C-alpha cells in the first residue's frame, strides 16, 4: 500500500492543492531562507573562514620566517666565503712575502760571502805579493851582501893564504847562522 494512497485514505486533516501557491507559505519560506542564510553564515562560514584565515596567516608567517632565515644564512655564507677567500689570499701573500724575504736574505748572504771571499782572496794575493817582494828584496840584499862578502873575501885571500881556509869556514858558519 502506497504512502500517498494511505494518506488519501486515512487523512482526517484537510490537505492543500497539489500545485498551488500559498501566500503565507511563500512569505514564511522567504523568511526561513534568510534565517537559514544568517545561521549558515554565523555557524559555518564565519568560524571556518576565521580558522582558514588564521591558518593562512600562520603559514605566511612561517614562510616569511623561513625566507628571512634563509636570507640570513645566505648572507652569512657569503660573508664566510669572502672571508675564507681573503684568508686564503692573505696566507698566499704571507708565504710569498716570506719566500721573497728569504730569497732576498739568502741572496744578500751569498753576495756578502762572495764579496768577503773575494776580499780575502784579494788580500791574500796582495799579502803574497808583498811577501814575495819582501823575500825577493831580502834575497837581493842577501845576495848583494854575499857578493860583497865574497868580493871582500876574494880581496882578503890575496893578502893571506892561510886565512883563506878560516875565511871560508867563517862564511859557511855565517851563512849557516
Amino acid at each position, binding site marked *: 500500500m502506497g504512502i500517498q*494512497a494511505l494518506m488519501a485514505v486515512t487523512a482526517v486533516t484537510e490537505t492543500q492543492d*497539489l500545485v498551488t501557491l500559498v501566500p503565507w507559505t511563500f*512569505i514564511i519560506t522567504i523568511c526561513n531562507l534568510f534565517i537559514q542564510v544568517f545561521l549558515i553564515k554565523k*555557524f559555518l562560514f564565519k568560524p571556518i573562514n576565521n*580558522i582558514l584565515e588564521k591558518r593562512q596567516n600562520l603559514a605566511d608567517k612561517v614562510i616569511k620566517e623561513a625566507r628571512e632565515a634563509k636570507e640570513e644564512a645566505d648572507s652569512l655564507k657569503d660573508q664566510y666565503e669572502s672571508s675564507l677567500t681573503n684568508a686564503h689570499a692573505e696566507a698566499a701573500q704571507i708565504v710569498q712575502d716570506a719566500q721573497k724575504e728569504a730569497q732576498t736574505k739568502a741572496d744578500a748572504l751569498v753576495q756578502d760571502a762572495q764579496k768577503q771571499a773575494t776580499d780575502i782572496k784579494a788580500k791574500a794575493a796582495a799579502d803574497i805579493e808583498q811577501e814575495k817582494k819582501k823575500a825577493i828584496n831580502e834575497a837581493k840584499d842577501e845576495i848583494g851582501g854575499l857578493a860583497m862578502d865574497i868580493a871582500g873575501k876574494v880581496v882578503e885571500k890575496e893578502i893571506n893564504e892561510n886565512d883563506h881556509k878560516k875565511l871560508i869556514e867563517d862564511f859557511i858558519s855565517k851563512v849557516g847562522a
Partner: protein
Amino acid sequence: MSKEFSVVGPKIYATIRTGIPILGDIKITETIIVSWIVMLIITALCIFLTWDLKVENISKRQAFAEMLVEMGNNFVRNNTGSTKFDKLIPFVSALFITSVVSNLISLIGLRSPTADLSTEAAWATVVFIMITATKIKTNGLGGYLKGFTTPIAVMTPFNILSELATPVSMACRHFGNILSGVVIDGLIYWALGLASSALLGLIPGAVGGFLSKIPVLGVGLPAITGVYFDWFSGCMQAFIFCMLTIMYIANAAEEG
C-alpha cells in the same frame, strides 16, 4: 487495499484566521513544519561541524567543514570567474543545502518542502529580486528599463516575458522534478503493494489474508529506483537551481 492511486498536497495541520484579504489565512502545513525540521538539521549540523575548531592538527570533522566551505567558495568563484560575488557565498550555500536536505528528507518518510510550489516560488522570487537589483545596480534604473526595448522597441513585451520566465522556469523546474519523484515513488510503492497483495493472496485461508496486507515486495526495489528519483534528482535540482542563481546574477553584473 486501495485500488485507486492519488497524490495529494501537503497536509494542513492548523489554520490561523487572519482576515487579511489577499494573503488569506495562515495555514501551518506539512511544508512549513518540515522546512523547520530541515533548518534545525542544517543548523545543528553546522554547529556540530564547527565545534572546537583548531588551527593546527584538525579533526576529520573540521576538515569536512573546511571542505564544505571551500566547496562553496570555489563554486561561486569558479562560476562567476571572480571574487566580487563573495558576499553571495553564504546565500548560495544556504540555498543549496536547504534544497538538498529538503529534497532528501523524503527518504525518512517526511514530505519534502520542495514538493510544494510555494517553496520554490519563494526562492525563485528572492533570486529574481537579486538579479534585478544587480542589473539596476550595474546599469542604473534608466539603463535597466532601457534594456527592455533592445534591440527594437517592439520587443518590449517579449523581453518582459523572458525576464519573468526566469523565476517561473526556475521554480517550476525544481518543483516539477521533486514532485515527479514523489509521484513515481508513490506509484512504485502502490504498484508493489498491489503486487505483493496479489502474490500473497494466493496463500489460502486466514494466513494469506493476513500476509497479503504486508507489502513485502516494497522492500528492495524502491531503494534502487530511489537512487535516481530521490538522491540524484534531489541533488541535481539543488545544484541546477544554485548554478542558475549564480550565473544569472553574474550575467546581470556584466551587462552594459
